[in-house]
C-alpha cells in the first residue's frame, strides 16, 4: 500500500533528488530487449574479449592460498604504488611520489567518483566533451556539481577544441574532464590540442581530470599523457588503470595520481567508503606491471587487426566511419538511413539480431551514430557486418 493510499505523507521522498536527477541510461529498455533474445551478435560489449593472462591471475590465486586476504594500506600496497609510479616515469616521464601522490582505487570508476567528490563544491561546473562516457556527467551530478557540455564532431575527429572549452567557462567552472582515447568514439587527442587545453586550464586556474584508461590502446601513434605536458602537474588529476590494457575489467583496480593535497582528499573519502582496493586485485596488478608487458603488446596488435577489418567493413557497407586511433570502438554515422540512433539500434536488433549501442546514449553529439565494439571475434565482426549491410541496404534513403 503506497503512502498515498494509506493516507500517510512520508517525511521524505524515498529517493534523493540528486539520484533522481541522474538520467537513467536511455538504454535500459534496449538492454532488456537484448537480454530476452537468443542468437544475438553483440557489438555492444565494452570490455576485452580476453581473459586476464593466466600468470597475472595466478599471482592473485597464489596470494589467496597464502592467506593474503586482509585489508591493505588505504592508499594501496606500497609495492604496487611504487611500480605504478615507476611505470608512469618510464612510459611518460612523469614523477609522482609513491607516498602521497598516488591512490589505488576500485577501477578508474572509483577514481573518477573520488576526484569529483574531492574537488567539487555544490554548483561547481565541470566542462566535458559531448559525446562522453556515461559516468562522466553522473559522477559530477552525484558530487553536487553541474556538467557542462562542449560539442565535438566527426569533422574534427571528435577531438575537443580548447577554444570551444574556453567559450563555456563561467565563474562557476571548477574543472575540465577529458577522456582520450575515447569511449565511445575511439578518438585520440593530438599533443598540440592537449597543450592548447593546458593553456586554457592554466589561464583560468582550472583542474584538469584526464581519464586515460585506454592509454595503451592506440594504433599508429603514441599516446600523449596529459600529465606529461609542461607545467600541468600541479593542477591535474590523472586517472589510469589495468582493465583494458591487461584485460582485468572484473578485478576492479585502477589509480589516480595528482598533487598531494588532492590525493590526500581523495584518500580521505576512499578510506571511509572503500577502505582499500581489493587485495587480490592489487596483487594481480603488481604481477601485471612486472611481467605483463608482452601480453599488452600482443593484445593491442590483435585489436588493431580487427579495428582495420571493422572500419573498412563499415565503410564498405555504406556507413561512413572516421578512423578511430584508440580504444576498441568504431563510431560510424547512420544518418544515411534517415533513422535516429535509437531507432536504428532497436530495429537492427529486432530485424537482424545485431546489438550496437546508439550514439545518443553518450550525448547529443552522438545522435546519428552507433558505437560498435570490435573486441570480439573476427567471425562475429564479419557476420555482424554482413547483417548490418543488409539492414542498411534495406533502409538507406
Amino acid at each position, binding site marked *: 500500500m503506497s503512502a498515498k493510499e494509506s493516507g500517510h505523507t512520508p517525511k521524505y521522498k524515498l529517493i534523493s533528488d540528486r539520484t533522481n536527477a541522474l538520467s537513467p541510461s536511455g538504454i535500459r529498455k534496449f538492454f532488456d530487449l537484448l537480454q530476452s533474445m537468443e542468437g544475438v551478435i553483440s557489438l555492444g560489449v565494452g570490455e576485452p574479449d580476453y*581473459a586476464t593472462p593466466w600468470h597475472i591471475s595466478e599471482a592473485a590465486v597464489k596470494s589467496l592460498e597464502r592467506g593474503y586476504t586482509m585489508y591493505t594500506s588505504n592508499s594501496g600496497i606500497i609495492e604496487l604504488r611504487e611500480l605504478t609510479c615507476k611505470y608512469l616515469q618510464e612510459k611518460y616521464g612523469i614523477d609522482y611520489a609513491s607516498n602521497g601522490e598516488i591512490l589505488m582505487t576500485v577501477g578508474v570508476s572509483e577514481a573518477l567518483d573520488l576526484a569529483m567528490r574531492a574537488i567539487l563544491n555544490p554548483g561547481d561546473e565541470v566542462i566535458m566533451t559531448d559525446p562522453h562516457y556515461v559516468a562522466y556527467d553522473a559522477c559530477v551530478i552525484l558530487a553536487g556539481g553541474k556538467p557542462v557540455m562542449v560539442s565535438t564532431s566527426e569533422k574534427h575527429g571528435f577531438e575537443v577544441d580548447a577554444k570551444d572549452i574556453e567559450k563555456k567557462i563561467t565563474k562557476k567552472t571548477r574543472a575540465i574532464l577529458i577522456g582520450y582515447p575515447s569511449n565511445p568514439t575511439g578518438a585520440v587527442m593530438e599533443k598540440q590540442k592537449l597543450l592548447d587545453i593546458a593553456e586554457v586550464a592554466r589561464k583560468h586556474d582550472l583542474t584538469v581530470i584526464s581519464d586515460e584508461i585506454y592509454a595503451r590502446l592506440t594504433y599508429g601513434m603514441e599516446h600523449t599523457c596529459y600529465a606529461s605536458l609542461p607545467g600541468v602537474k600541479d593542477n591535474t588529476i590523472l586517472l589510469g588503470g589495468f582493465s583494458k590494457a591487461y584485460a582485468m575489467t572484473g578485478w576492479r583496480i585502477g589509480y589516480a595520481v595528482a598533487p598531494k593535497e588532492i590525493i590526500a582528499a581523495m584518500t580521505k573519502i576512499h578510506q571511509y567508503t572503500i577502505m582499500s582496493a581489493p587485495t587480490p586485485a592489487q596483487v594481480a596488478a603488481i604481477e601485471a606491471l612486472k611481467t605483463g608487458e608482452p601480453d599488452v603488446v600482443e593484445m593491442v596488435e590483435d585489436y588493431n587487426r580487427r579495428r*582495420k577489418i571493422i572500419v573498412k567493413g563499415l565503410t564498405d557497407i555504406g556507413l561512413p566511419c572516421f578512423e578511430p586511433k584508440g580504444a576498441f570502438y568504431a563510431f560510424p554515422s547512420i544518418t544515411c538511413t534517415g533513422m535516429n540512433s535509437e531507432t536504428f539500434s532497436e530495429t537492427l536488433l529486432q530485424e537482424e539480431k545485431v*546489438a550496437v549501442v546508439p550514439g545518443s546514449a553518450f550525448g547529443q553529439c552522438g545522435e546519428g551514430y552507433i558505437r560498435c565494439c570490435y573486441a570480439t571475434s573476427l567471425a562475429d565482426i564479419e557476420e555482424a557486418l554482413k547483417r548490418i549491410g543488409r539492414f542498411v541496404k534495406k533502409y538507406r534513403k
Partner: protein
Amino acid sequence: MLKDILKILENDPRTTEKQIATMVGVSAAEVTKAIKQAEKDRIILKYKTVVNWDRLEGDEQVWALIEVRVKPEPEVGFDSIAGRIALFQQVRSLFLASGTYDLLLVVVGKSEHKVADFVSQNLAHIEGVQGTVTHFVLKRYKDDGEILEGGEGVKRQPMIL
C-alpha cells in the same frame, strides 16, 4: 609484413587473403605473393585443423611419447637416423633433446597394440637405435596450444556502456 601474415594464419588458416590484406594494411595481391613465397621457402609447411578425436566414439587415438637412445653416426651425428625415423607416418613429432635420451618421438596410433608393434617392428631395428622407452599417454590436457576439456571461456555482458 610476412611476420604479421604468418601470425594471422597460424592462429586461423581460414582467414581469407582479403581479410589478411586489410588487417596488415597491404594489398591482397601482396598477401598472395608473400604466402606463395613462404610456402616455397618452407616457412609455411602446412595449413592445419586441430581436431580432438577423443570426442568421437570409436575414433579415439592412442598417444605415446617414446624416448630413443641412439648411437650417433660419424660426421652426420643424429641427423641421418632422425631423418629415417621421421619418415614413419605414425611419428607425429620428433625431437633431438638434451638429457638421458637422445630422440623424443610423439607417436599416434589406433591402439596400444599398434603403437607397440611400431616400436618393436619398425623402430627398434633401425641401425643405431640402442634402446627405447615408451610412455603411453593416459590423458591429454592440452595439445597444439588448445585446451582439450573445458576451454570454452566465460560469456561477457552483452552490453556495457
